[in-house]
C-alpha cells in the first residue's frame, strides 16, 4: 500500500520536477551558450571577449538578460499585432516541448514515449511557424524575406536530416530514446562509427535547420538586416534568441542520442577502460584548480571572491561525481552512478557538439542561397537516401550472411562515400557550367 503510494507520487512528481528544471534552467543555459560562443569567437579571432561583468565575463549573460527584459517592447504600427505578439511564443514552446522526450541520463526524462525520437524531431519542426508568422506579421520586406528563406531552408534540410535519422533508426530498430542508447551499448559501438555518412549529413542538416552560420541566410545581416527578427526588440527578441539556442540544444541532444551513444561512457562495454569513470571528477577538479589559479589575478576584490566561489563549486561537483565510485556508496545506491555520470557524459557530448557548431560558424563563410538549395537538394538528399540503402545492405550482410560489423559497415560506408564523390563531382561540374544564373 505504502509502496504503491510512493510509486504513484514518484511517477507524478519526477516528470513534473524535470519539466520545471528544464523550463527554469534552459534560459540560463542558453545565456551561457551565448557567452561560450562569444568567448570561442574571441579566442579564434585572438581577442578576449566579454571581460567586464564578473570575472572573465562570467556574469555577462545575466546582465544581458536583465537588459533585454527592461528594454522597450516596440510593436510596429502596421504589424498584425496579435500574430506579432504570440509568434515568438510558438518558437519557444516548440523548442522546449521537444526537450520533454529526451533522456538526459537514465534518471532525467520527462516522458518516455514509444515514438520518442520522432516526437522530438516533429515537435521541434513546429518552431518554424514562429519564425514564419513573426516575419510575416512584422509587415516588413526584410522580415518577410528572412521568414521565406527560413521556411524554404527548413523544408529542404528536414528531408535530409530525416533520412539520416532513418539510417540510424534502422540500426537501433526502435524509436524510443532509451532503447536507442541501449542498442548502441549492445552493438559495442556508437552509431556515428557504424553510419559515419549519416552522422555527417545530420551535422550539416542540423546546422541548416537551426539557421546557423554558414547557413544563417534567414538572418544574414549584410543582406536582410536581421531577417525575421528585424522588427522585434526587447523581450520578444530575447524569446527568439532563446528558441534558437534551445533548438541548438535539441539538435545536439538528438545527435548525441542517435549517433554519439547518449549517456554511455566512451568504451562503455570494455572493463579495460573503466578508469574513464574518474574522468568527470578529474575534469571538474582541473576546472576548479584553474579557477583558483586565476583568482589572485582578477583586477577587483569582488571578482577574486567570485572566482574562489566558482572554484569551490567545481570542487563540490567533483566530490558529488566521485561519490558513486566509493564502494560503500555504490552498494547503498546502485543507481547513483549511471544517473549522475550518465547526465555528465550526455551534457558533455551535447556541449562538444555545440562547440563544433561554433567552430564551423567561425571557420566558413556564408553560403549563397542558390548554393544552399543546391547542396540540400542535389547532394545531401540523394546521399542520405543512398546512405539508408547502404545501412540496409550492411544489416542484411551482418544479420543474414554472418559478416562481422567491420567488413559489413566498412564496405557499405566506402560505397556510400563513392556515391558522395560522384554526386559532388557532378554538382561541381554544374557549378562551372553556369557560373551565375542570376535570380536564386
Amino acid at each position, binding site marked *: 500500500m505504502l509502496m504503491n503510494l510512493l510509486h504513484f507520487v514518484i511517477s507524478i512528481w519526477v516528470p513534473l520536477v524535470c519539466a520545471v528544471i528544464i523550463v527554469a534552467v534552459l534560459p540560463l543555459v542558453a545565456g551561457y551558450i551565448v557567452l561560450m560562443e562569444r568567448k570561442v569567437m574571441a579566442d579564434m579571432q585572438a581577442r578576449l571577449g566579454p571581460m567586464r561583468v564578473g570575472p572573465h565575463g562570467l556574469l555577462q549573460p545575466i546582465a544581458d538578460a536583465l537588459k533585454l527584459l527592461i528594454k522597450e517592447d516596440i510593436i510596429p504600427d502596421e504589424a*498584425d499585432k496579435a*500574430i506579432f505578439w504570440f509568434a515568438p511564443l510558438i518558437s519557444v514552446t516548440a523548442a522546449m516541448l521537444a526537450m520533454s522526450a529526451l533522456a538526459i541520463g537514465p534518471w532525467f526524462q520527462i516522458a518516455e*514515449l*514509444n*515514438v520518442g525520437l*520522432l*516526437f522530438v*524531431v*516533429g*515537435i521541434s*519542426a*513546429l518552431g*518554424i*511557424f514562429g519564425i*514564419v*508568422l513573426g*516575419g*510575416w*506579421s512584422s509587415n516588413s520586406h526584410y522580415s*518577410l524575406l528572412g*521568414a*521565406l528563406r527560413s*521556411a*524554404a531552408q*527548413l*523544408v529542404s534540410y*528536414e528531408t535530409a536530416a530525416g533520412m539520416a535519422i532513418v539510417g540510424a533508426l534502422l540500426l537501433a530498430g526502435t*524509436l524510443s530514446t532509451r532503447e536507442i542508447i541501449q542498442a548502441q551499448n549492445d552493438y559495442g559501438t556508437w552509431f556515428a562509427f557504424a553510419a559515419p555518412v549519416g552522422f555527417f549529413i545530420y551535422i550539416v542538416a542540423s546546422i541548416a535547420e537551426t539557421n546557423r552560420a554558414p547557413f544563417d541566410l534567414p538572418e544574414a545581416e549584410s543582406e536582410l538586416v536581421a531577417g525575421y527578427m528585424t522588427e522585434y526588440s526587447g523581450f520578444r527578441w530575447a524569446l527568439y534568441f532563446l528558441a534558437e539556442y534551445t533548438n541548438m540544444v535539441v539538435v545536439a541532444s538528438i545527435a548525441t542520442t542517435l549517433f554519439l551513444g547518449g549517456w554511455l561512457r566512451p568504451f562503455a562495454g570494455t572493463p579495460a577502460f573503466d578508469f574513464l569513470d574518474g574522468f568527470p571528477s578529474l575534469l571538474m577538479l582541473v576546472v576548479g584548480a584553474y579557477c583558483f589559479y586565476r583568482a589572485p589575478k582578477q583586477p577587483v576584490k569582488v571578482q577574486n571572491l567570485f572566482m574562489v566561489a566558482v572554484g569551490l563549486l567545481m570542487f563540490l561537483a567533483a566530490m558529488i561525481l566521485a561519490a558513486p565510485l566509493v564502494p560503500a556508496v555504490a552498494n547503498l545506491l546502485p543507481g547513483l552512478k549511471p544517473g549522475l555520470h550518465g547526465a555528465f557524459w550526455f551534457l558533455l557530448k551535447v556541449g562538444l557538439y555545440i562547440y563544433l557548431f561554433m567552430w564551423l560558424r567561425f571557420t566558413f563563410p556564408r553560403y549563397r542561397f542558390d548554393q544552399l538549395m543546391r547542396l540540400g537538394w542535389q547532394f545531401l538528399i540523394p546521399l542520405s537516401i543512398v546512405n539508408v540503402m547502404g545501412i540496409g545492405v550492411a544489416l542484411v550482410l551482418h544479420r543474414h550472411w554472418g559478416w562481422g560489423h567491420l567488413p559489413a559497415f566498412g564496405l557499405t560506408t566506402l560505397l556510400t562515400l563513392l556515391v558522395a564523390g560522384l554526386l559532388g563531382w557532378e554538382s561541381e561540374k554544374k557549378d562551372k557550367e553556369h557560373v551565375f544564373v542570376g535570380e536564386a
Partner: protein
Amino acid sequence: MLDQIVFYFFAALAVVSAILVVTRRNVVQSAIFLITALLATAGIFLSLHAEFLFIVQVILYAGGIMVLFVFVIMLINMDVALHQIQFNRQWWLGLLLALVVGAELTIAIAIGRSHLSFGDPAPASALEPSTQLVGKVLFSEYMLPFEIASILLLVAMIGAVVMAKKKI
C-alpha cells in the same frame, strides 16, 4: 475522468478552430486555426495511445503541409485577398448539406445507441507498441496498396516537377 476531460478539450478545440478556419477573413489567421485544428486532432490520437498516428499527424500535416501553405499564403497580396468575397454563391447549399449530414449522423447514433457497445478501453500497458504494429501490417498485409500509394505519390512528384520546369 481525466481521459474524458482531455478528449472534450481537444474535441472542442478542433471543432471551434475548424469553424474559425472558414469564417475568418484573414487567410493567415485561417491557416493558424487550421494548424490548431490539426494539432487538436493529433492530441485526440495521443489520448487514445495511438502515438504513431499522433506524431505522423504532427510531422506531416502540421509540420510539413501547413508550412508550405503558410509559405504560399505569405506571397499572396493580402490587400486584394481581404476585399474578395469570402464565400461563393452556393454557400447556403453547402450549409444545408452539412446540416442534413449532421442531423443524419445524430439520428443514426441516437437510434443505434443501444446496439452499440465499444467495450472498456484496454489499459495502456496492455497495448502492443503501435509503431512496430503499423510497420508490420504495412509491409506484410497491406504491402500492395502501400506500394501502389507510394508509386502514385512518386508520379505526382515527377508530374509537379515536369509542370513547373520549362526545360528539363
